């Protein structure tokens, strides 16, 4: 691990410095080998720190019995976002390191939607945005429900940034797939985000959107399979509310 510290200093100034170059090579190899693990453990650490931060925020919040400053909403929103991103990075790392498999069970779709609404409940209570959840009570789906509700939750969280006042969360059976929809009444996805399942999503440096949320849910979707049918996602602007529509298909 100590080798990593020196790697910037050893960055080759000139190709003539052969010995340095070898040192650099070794260090860089050490970097490639260890970096993912360091990244993962750091992310884990950040998550712990974040959860303490959130506990502190909620304590502070409880000291304001009636009129809470609006900053709390922003704090919760941002910490939610941060937490979801860290969780997704960590999960992607584990998938890559073969330390992960889905925990699939037959789940009630109603329960999954309830979980997502619950996750957003504090936030929605503080804003003017309406989140509507719709599905049949007897709809069931084979999936890793923890992961799916987290992934969809992130997207709902995102939708709050882009919608005007309404988000519709729904699910239904379509042929051999159960489809989850997130629709909003905003201006819709930008062109580079409109894609079918297989494409990777554009990184938009201006809005700061990394595409992690979509990439994550696309990866998780694909891991769900029944024989040779895999899950996938779709993004379009065919929302019944006039804005963006995200669809997650699970076999």
């Amino acid at each position, binding site marked *: 691990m100590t080798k990593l510290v020196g790697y910037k200093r050893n960055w080759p100034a000139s190709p003539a410095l052969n010995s340095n170059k070898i040192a650099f090579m070794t260090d860089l190899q050490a970097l490639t080998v260890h970096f993912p693990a360091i990244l993962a453990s750091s992310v*884990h650490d950040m*998550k*712990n720190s*974040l*959860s*303490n931060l*959130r*506990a*502190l925020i*909620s*304590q502070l919040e*409880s000291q304001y019995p009636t009129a809470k400053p609006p900053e709390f909403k922003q704090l919760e929103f941002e*910490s939610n976002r941060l*937490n979801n991103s860290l*969780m997704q990075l*960590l*999960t992607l790392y*584990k998938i890559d390191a*073969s*330390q*992960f*498999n889905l*925990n*699939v*069970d*037959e789940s*009630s779709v109603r*329960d999954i939607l*309830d*979980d997502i*609404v*619950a*996750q957003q*409940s*504090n936030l929605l209570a503080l804003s003017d945005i309406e989140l509507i959840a719709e599905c049949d009570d*007897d709809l*069931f789906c*084979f999936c890793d429900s*923890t992961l799916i509700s987290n992934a969809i939750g992130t997207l709902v969280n995102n939708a709050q940034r882009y919608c005007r006042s309404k988000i519709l969360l729904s699910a239904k059976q379509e042929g051999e797939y159960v489809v989850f929809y997130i629709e909003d009444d905003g201006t819709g996805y930008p062109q580079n985000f409109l894609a079918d399942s297989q494409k990777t999503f554009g990184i938009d440096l201006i809005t700061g959107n990394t595409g992690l949320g979509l990439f994550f849910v696309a990866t998780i979707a694909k891991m769900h399979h*029944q*024989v040779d049918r895999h899950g996938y996602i779709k993004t379009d602007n065919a929302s019944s509310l006039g804005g963006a529509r995200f669809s997650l298909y699970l076999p």
Partner: protein
Amino acid sequence: MKLNLNSQTILVAEDQAVMRETLKHILYEMNAQRIVEAESGVNAIAAMRKTSFDIVLCDYNLGTGKNGQQVLEEAKHLKLLPFNAIFILVTSEQNPGMVLSAVDNKPDDYLIKPFNGQQLLNRLERCFMRKHALADIEIELDQGNLYQAIGNCEKLLAQNDKKMRMQLLKIRAELALKISDFKTAKAIYLDVLLERDLPWARLGLAIIAFMQADYEQAIDGLQDIILQFPMQLEAYDWLAKAHEATGNIEAALTALNQAIELSPQTILRQQQIALLADKAEQVDIANKAYRAAIKLGKHSVHKSSRDFSGLAKNLLKNNPNSNLLNLVSDLLEQFPNDPEARLRAATLESEIYGALGKNVLAQESYEKTLKLNEQFGQEAPRELRLEIAQACFKKGDSEVFDHIMQDLIKTNIDDRKFLETITQVCSDVMGENYAESLIHRVKQELVDINNNGVSLFKEGKTKEALSVLEQAVGNLPNNQTIVLNITKIMLHDLKTSGSTMAKVQKAQAYINKAVQLGITHDKIGGLQAELARLASIKLK
């Protein structure tokens, strides 16, 4: 049935004051009235000893002492949790069911941090509903009534509640495995797999293959599971067992090591590794695992004095020195007032002094061993008893040796593998025939008692027959034939001279004992059905 937190007694175990406050705040906002808090694992257990909780919210990370999983294990072990209590393990681990997976004792649910009040309430409500739905099964399991649990599980399945269906099928198949009803279990697993490729169903099939001694198929199936579901840790445990059964200790160790790499906190796996490595005479690996088990054991209910004596014995072989006595005092310190630990310590001490040439002290410790053996020997694990017997033989105490061996043979007369071990140990010291003639004698005694009971029964002397056989159970407690015959005679008695509640309960206790002894469903299932029929006639 709706969950009302108002009426629930709740324990919040969390080491960080800020988090504890937050959780309490959330719970009070949801109408909770009775909340007890604990800031460490030890205090959580202490609180559970004092109060019977309906809900326990326990953080996995509780600082330096016990972790949340260990709290759960200890609470279950000490029976501090009522069967309908909800235990939720709180963690920031995204994949807790897999990463934190213990070999047994899973919490009712995991709650992943961060969460808000609504999320917590959702989770509690779902646990509550599930517990409520499964209560009829759990009550019977709590009493050891497997067949009644199966009956209730069937009834619940017939209600066709889709939310419960998969869980009930899984429970039904596991119960079938417990009574060695492989046919039913296999049918369920195959049906589930037709619907969906779920790892637990595949694991079930592999376990059946293992139990039917088809080790090759078990190994194939398990390796396949691990390839596709690398976090399915139970598959590694079964793979190790299957490899061990085929004599491939090396492969068994590899499988367990893989599981430990993925989930390092499991003491039971370390103990398994230590024993396997000892068997294969891989001393370094064994010692490493013993040390890990001792370390993990500090806060675990699974800690075992055997880990200390295993390590000490290996070290003694390699390099006898007086430092080993420290290990003995550690052992006594870790297990105060534990007869088994005292026996182990005395045996070890005697061996260590002997190896160091301190004969007076060695003799003193040996005498201590003998005294403890007289007091507690019968409750000691059989591997320790064998060891004590060997020590006695070395000292020329053949009477004690004889006594222990006879007792071991009597209590393990159906366990072919263990009898082989005994024969092996005896032939090393007493010559080939010693154990064989002992075993023969016990078996003959068994046949005589059994024949006596059966002929009394045939003469119509039911009472006398039962009394002869029941007396034998005291002497040969683990013999299948006697227990099976008692059950049959009791059923006959119920049929002919009418049934009372007491008789039905007694017969049920013998059936439960038979299942516990491993008598398979094809032998006992019919008797259970008969008892159920007789009991229901009585109720009418």
